[in-house]
């Protein structure tokens, strides 16, 4: 731990900052309220003397580089991952230009939340690749999970010193780096443009520079992504150790045919999933050479539930506050932290606690990063290109609900049943594994709760589930009386697709005309 003893309170109000410079709006009232960050975490947090966030705003890449100079150096040294390791190399808070120089060119085109907590989140996620290599260096086992979005990493976290990650998430790497090199690598193995952007993970696996060789690939199969299935087939063919994990399709209760919602169906699926999880735990135990323990899994569930509760509160405040306290991109990455905690569950909790404290403070102070009359939409399906969310906000839009295919990672895991059953139940509620009708229900529920004026579905060209589901989802939303925009996010390198811009602009006009 660095020698930081000075006081830092992320909940304090904004610094009075005269002038009309970017991100320096009217000063907000200063408050002495303490951070609600739980004591178990806050006592490990670096203390900052005199640092205070500016009035919340979205700022450019260059502006954040300037703002970064305001952060005391000793505080920077205090933001560390793997704090159980004595090494001093695990700091991750660097200015945007550093990450950009290391390949995240896309940062230059984005607008960011100007709060320290938000940039801490960015830094934490941008340093994930490095962290996974470091994990190996300090004797942790890295396990690749895929296709289930948020449940298998809990199982992996039940093993001490095991670090889960999703190679699938490298679907965004070509966008972030504005480079098609990973797509080109996948193309050599037959995964071209008719496959989802997750094909980039094949290139990442084969190049060996994006994540270390995992001890095991744990891949969901069945009612899930067909594209990633193909990626994993090729990874297995290359000789890597893959364990397939079956996820059944979940029919709805009470839908049309007599068989749908058959009462035994849920019980049958639950039993099957528990068996699949037991088998996966055994395989993990062999691969990691550690015994599997339900008690340790229960502990992991408790830690993950805490993170899920943090994100749940963060989402609710972000979506419900009169002024958006957090931009959509940062909210998206906070939500996606629940997938695999960006390689360090404990530090991830601290990062999100910090972010939540900032958001709570902003809500209390009635501050936000967007206008109060912003056009509210629920955003459906994750986007590999964060610029579309950013661009929507630049048009006067706001995201007040999401369905990023991750419902299974948002819901709290049950603690009153055996731990494998709790994981099985989370999978039964997964976005991908059930019907479109059920997924639409999640979307509409948020529309009504947060007063959304429309729904935006950003789908991925080549992604099997997007192609198969989006038309139906859009139909069901329209049938409920809400305007819906659907577009595909193409890979366009440095420029955001003109077509996407035009369609978002037209949708904003439409919503404005209706309001």
């Amino acid at each position, binding site marked *: 731990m660095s020698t930081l003893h000075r006081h830092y309170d992320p909940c304090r109000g904004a610094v009075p900052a005269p002038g009309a410079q970017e991100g320096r709006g009217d000063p907000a009232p200063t408050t002495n309220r303490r951070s609600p960050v739980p004591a178990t975490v806050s006592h490990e947090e670096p203390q900052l003397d005199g640092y205070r966030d500016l009035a919340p705003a979205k700022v450019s890449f260059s502006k954040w580089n300037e703002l970064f100079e305001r952060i005391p150096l000793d505080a920077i040294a205090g933001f560390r991952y793997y704090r159980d390791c004595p090494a001093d190399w695990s700091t991750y808070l660097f200015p945007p230009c550093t990450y950009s120089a290391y390949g995240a060119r896309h940062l230059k085109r984005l607008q960011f939340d100007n709060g320290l907590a938000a940039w801490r989140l960015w830094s934490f996620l941008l340093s994930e690749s490095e962290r996974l290599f470091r994990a190996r260096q300090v004797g942790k086992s890295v396990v690749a999970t895929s296709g289930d979005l948020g449940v298998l990493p809990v199982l992996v976290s039940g093993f001490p010193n095991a670090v889960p990650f999703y190679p699938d998430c490298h679907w965004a790497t070509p966008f972030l780096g504005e480079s098609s090199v990973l797509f080109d690598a996948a193309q050599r193995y037959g995964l071209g443009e008719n496959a989802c952007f997750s094909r980039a993970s094949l290139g990442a696996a084969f190049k060996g520079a994006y994540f270390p060789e995992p001890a095991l690939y744990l891949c969901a199969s069945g009612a899930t992504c067909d*594209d990633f299935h193909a990626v994993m087939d090729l990874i297995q063919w290359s000789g890597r150790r893959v364990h397939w994990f*079956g996820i059944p399709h979940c029919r709805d209760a009470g839908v049309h*045919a*007599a068989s*749908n919602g058959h009462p035994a169906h849920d019980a049958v699926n639950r039993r*099957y999933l528990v068996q699949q999880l037991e088998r996966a735990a055994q395989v993990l135990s062999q691969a990691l050479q550690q015994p599997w323990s339900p008690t340790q899994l229960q502990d992991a569930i408790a830690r993950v539930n805490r993170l899920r509760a943090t994100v749940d509160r963060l989402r609710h405040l972000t979506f419900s506050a009169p002024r958006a306290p957090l931009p959509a991109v940062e909210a998206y990455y906070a939500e996606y932290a629940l997938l695999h905690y960006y390689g360090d569950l404990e530090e991830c909790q601290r990062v999100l606690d910090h972010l939540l404290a900032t958001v709570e403070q902003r809500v209390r102070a009635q501050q936000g990063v967007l206008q109060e009359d912003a056009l509210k939409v629920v955003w459906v399906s994750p986007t590999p290109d964060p610029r579309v969310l950013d661009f929507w906000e630049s048009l006067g839009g706001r995201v007040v609900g999401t369905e990023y295919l991750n419902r299974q990672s948002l819901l709290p895991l049950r603690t009153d049943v055996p731990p494998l059953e709790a994981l099985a139940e989370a999978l039964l509620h997964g976005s991908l594994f059930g019907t479109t009708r059920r997924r639409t229900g999640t979307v509409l529920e948020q529309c009504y709760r947060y007063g959304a004026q429309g729904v935006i579905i950003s789908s991925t060209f080549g992604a099997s589930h997007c*192609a198969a589901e989006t038309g139906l989802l859009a139909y069901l939303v329209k049938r409920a009386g809400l305007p819906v925009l659907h577009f595909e996010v193409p890979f366009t390198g440095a420029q955001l697709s003109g077509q996407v811009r035009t369609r978002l602009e037209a949708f904003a006009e439409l919503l404005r005309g209706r309001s």
Partner: protein
Amino acid sequence: MYEPIERLQAQAQAYVSEHAERGVPLVGYIYGFAPPELLRACGAVPVRVRIAGGYEAQHTGQQLTQGNTCTYCKAIVGSARSAPLDRLALLVSDGLCEALRRAGEVWDVRFGRAVHTLSVPRVGNEETLRHYVAELGALREAVCALTGRAFDEVRLREEIQRSNQVRALLRRVNRFRTENPPRLTASELWALAAAAELLPPEQAIEPLQCLCAELEKRTPLEGPRKRLLLLGSFLAQDDRALVDLIEQGGGQIVCDALLEGQGTFWRDVSAEGDPLQALAAHALEGSWHILRPHEALFQYLEAQREAMKVQGIVYKTLEFCDPWSLQAKRIKMQTKAPFLHVDGDYSPAHRQQLRTRVEAFLEML
């Protein structure tokens, strides 16, 4: 078409129409994960959804789905309101892939049609079999609720036994297409198998026995022919154009790795033990296409190549059929055989281009 096969086709169509008019529920299925024996034992008439008029149906379906959805699934959606699928009382959608699962849901949501989505496992282990048996149990109850009939296990056992007889006869017929020169083309065999599966086994057995006898006397086709193995996406009615081009160009598909082709008769269902378990095991054993890890697919391909003296592989994929098209390169690299990959939709516009490719491939062999 060979006249005895035409006769059987007509008989099968008449059977289905007659039962539909009498109000017997027609239950559509796709790959066979909903075993026809089970559907019959529940009092329904099983009809495999092979889709006729695919190009038009594909376009209709595209308006209700997305352009980049699998061609076959678009055609299923587009056929919901037209004959013969408009007569189905229930569609059993094999939840093999995302597109199939959602195509079934489009039927349900957009047209109010009854759909049962089967959760077809894709991981091969013991739990998988148990889960699939339970899925068949749920299907059984759904179909019995539809027909209003009580499930009759004795009848199911009889159906299995008689269906095994049909399978044995089809395997016998299959031998005529593996000769060089053959006495039966692959398209004739598939037409025959399609007709036979529409009929109840007791009505198919005798015509098939007669056909075997007639084939013994049939003059072999012009030959010798290049011996090919076919695999890939679902072989629908409109894909037969590819098979015709191969046969016209001097090729013969002597074996296939299609669930809706050779897969329909390749092995018997065990007559021992619990019949649902036997049906589930039969379906999964023949599912090397979809189960992971799928080394079994490559073992099967290797065994077929050797046994059938295969000279080349034709790999047919439908546009946006991800489970098959994304494997094309691997299969080509791993099989190391002369390989023709044909990817397309049901459009007739590319027919001449396809002819050129097929002819060039056959010449190369």
